[in-house]
């Protein structure tokens, strides 16, 4: 009995994957657990492993092809087995491999299996000479009175959902088309059969064509201690009002300039020991983590109906990669030595650029730091990485003339700007945190206090 190999969801947010390289050839013997292919997800390059043994009978998609999660990519079975039915069947969820994946396509289909039009008032509806948009699928067909205007508002949670007719979905599944990139010409952008006519042979758009998506809610790392605090009324009001004002994340910015002379001296001294180089970034991570420890109000996640205050500090570190950005996490940064942080940061950044991070290495941070100092940026504002409530944007170290004790002196200074989610962090709270951070960096002995 042949087994279907399907594109698996290899990251929490993955909806499709690109087969970067096949690691096995057709005809190769396969043992359960063998790496069949390398797959590029929205975040990383991952391994697609065999869930069943046998012979690789068919590689259904060539290298470089992007396919949606749960779609057939290969077939494993006995040598000489007839698999025409399987291969012709398109995406399937029949084999054991498929069962281990999240049935993304299926859930989507089910969500659209609502009666397509309200049954009542059909006479009025049918006699209307001009076409009018049908209510979107997902809106329950409440009995509408004749003449009542259809519910034109989009269904709740409609954001990323593809609206397509059942036939269009069937065709897409048969031909392996990704409906995400298809423009629908039906009411409210519904994709219908004719919209797929030119799409037949076109590979679905790769990840680069689509903005990387920031997960709405990151999975909670297992066993992490935290404290969920229900929203008070005033907090709800603040959240609502500020969201209306700026939304979706009501962000404000706090900037301060830090004297880095003593940090620079300490760093020079440390590096002079010849046991590896410490960067300003490493020191900033450590200082931020320690400051967060003192200001847990800034070490928190916005969770829509509550705020989660973390008791542990995990710093997300923004790393630029070829076609985007990823934020590997230095866990327990407050408890690690500068050397540990430095080594870990180097390793994570390197692997991030090679896109070889595992999902657990870039999720679960409690606060972010983005540093563009090495690119000669004086100061900037960074975009919050939700559900985290704050991110620190770190500018370059620059020599500046400052007035000190009534005389002008040249000092190495650094400007940092903290972006705060106002639903979680109020102005004074953020300012207090920055004050602590500034004090720590200006007196680096505090790092080892």
């Amino acid at each position, binding site marked *: 009995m042949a087994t279907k190999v399907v594109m698996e969801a290899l990251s929490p947010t993955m909806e499709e994957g690109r087969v970067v390289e096949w690691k096995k050839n057709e005809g190769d013997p396969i043992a359960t657990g063998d790496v069949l292919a390398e797959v590029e997800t929205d975040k990383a390059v991952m391994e697609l492993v065999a869930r069943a043994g046998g012979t690789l009978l068919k590689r259904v998609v060539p290298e470089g092809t992007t396919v949606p999660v749960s779609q057939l990519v290969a077939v494993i079975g006995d040598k000489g087995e007839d698999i025409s039915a399987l291969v012709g069947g398109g995406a399937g969820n029949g084999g054991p491999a498929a069962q281990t994946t999240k049935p993304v396509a299926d859930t989507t289909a089910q969500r659209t*299996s609502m*009666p*397509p*039009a309200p*049954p*009542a*008032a*059909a*006479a*009025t*509806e*049918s*006699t*209307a*000479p001009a*076409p009018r948009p*049908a209510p979107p699928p997902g809106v329950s067909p409440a009995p509408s009175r*004749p003449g009542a205007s259809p519910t034109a508002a989009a269904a709740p949670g409609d954001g990323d959902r593809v609206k397509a*007719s*059942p*036939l*269009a*979905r*069937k065709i897409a599944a048969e031909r392996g088309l990704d409906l995400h990139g298809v423009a629908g*010409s*039906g*009411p409210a952008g519904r994709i*219908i*059969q*004719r919209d797929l006519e030119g799409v037949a042979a076109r590979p679905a758009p790769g990840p680069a064509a689509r903005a990387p998506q920031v997960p709405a809610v990151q999975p909670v790392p297992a066993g992490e201690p935290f404290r969920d605090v229900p929203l008070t009324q005033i907090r709800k009001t603040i959240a609502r009002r500020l969201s209306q004002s700026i939304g979706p994340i009501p962000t404000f910015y706090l900037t301060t300039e830090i004297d880095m002379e003593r940090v620079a001296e300490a760093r020079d001294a440390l590096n002079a020991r010849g046991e590896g180089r410490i960067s300003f970034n490493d020191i900033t991570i450590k200082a931020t983590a320690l400051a967060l420890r003192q200001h847990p109000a800034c070490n928190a996640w916005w969770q829509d109906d509550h705020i989660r205050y973390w008791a542990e500090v995990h710093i997300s570190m923004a790393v630029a990669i070829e076609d985007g950005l990823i934020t590997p996490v230095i866990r327990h940064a407050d408890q690690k030595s500068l050397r540990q942080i430095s080594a870990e940061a180097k390793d994570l950044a390197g692997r991030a650029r090679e896109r070889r991070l595992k999902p657990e290495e870039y999720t679960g941070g409690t606060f972010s730091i983005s540093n563009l100092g090495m690119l000669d940026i004086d100061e900037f504002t960074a975009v919050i990485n939700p559900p985290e409530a704050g991110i620190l944007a770190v500018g370059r170290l620059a020599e500046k003339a400052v007035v000190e004790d009534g005389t002008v002196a040249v000092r190495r200074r650094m400007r940092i700007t903290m972006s705060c989610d106002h639903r979680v962090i109020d102005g004074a709270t953020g300012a207090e945190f920055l004050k602590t951070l500034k004090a720590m960096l200006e007196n680096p002995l505090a790092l080892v206090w």
Partner: protein
Amino acid sequence: MPTLTYRDALNQALREEMTRDDRVFLMGEEVGVYQGAYKVSRGLLEEFGPMRVVDTPITELGFAGVGVGAAMVGLRPIVEFMTWNFALLAVDQLVNSAAKMRYMSGGQVGVPAVFRGPGGAALQLAAQHSQAFESWYAHIPGLKVVMPATPADAKGLLKSAIRDDDPVIFIEGEMLYNVKGEVPEGEHLIPIGRADVKREGGDVTLICHSKTVTVALKAAEQLAGDGVHAEVVDLRTIRPLDTETVLASVGKTHRCVVVEEGWSFAGVGAQVVDVIQRDAFDELDAPVIRVTGADVPMPYNKQLEKAAKADPAKVIAAVNRVLYRG
């Protein structure tokens, strides 16, 4: 093949079946001496005599019950209602007696009777005389509901209904009585429960029955001039519904409009759409749209009456919607 009116095709079926089986008799208001309110029974009294062509008082409940009782003991009555509007007085006999007898007697007593007459609206007959009740009867297990649209179907289906061992609600169209068409001579039987594709096409399915078959065919003709090829499916029998033919057509065209004369709420089309959404869900490229009579009592005024009825323009508008055209 001879060309007959729908009326004469029915007359021929009655004559042939009464000749063939002496258990068959016709009863109702004005069926004998008057020769039928709509002349469907013309000449039958002279041919078969007053015991087999029975003029009744205006007493729908009573003579419907007489028909059921006669059928219970082995006759094969054809009970004519002058129109189905008047049969409302007889619903107790149709629903509580005819439809239930076989079941509540544990299969001992069947009711092989045909209840027939014109249904739906004619012209300017106003609210009490312009009603389509097929969905009422189709709701009832134990009844069969037959609605021919053409002379040939009228003959073939009436003959089958008379030979059927169960009560058959046979709804004709007053506006169809003068429609002409080729009708096979002699033994022409059309099975109950079989729909008919009246026109083939690949772009959209128009499902209809009785008078709306004409409406759908006219709409299809106009659409063809516009490059749209509509398939017209005439249900012919409402219960049992020929879901196979419906699903085959929708599977081919992926778009469907259901046309009926009656009101929309819980109408025949609602049942058809239920079948389609359940068994042809993945074939649909658009929601199925229904064209029905307006959800009001029928007005007398000519313009208002026209606005209340399904017509080709409304069907075409619905087709444009399921085709996502302008």
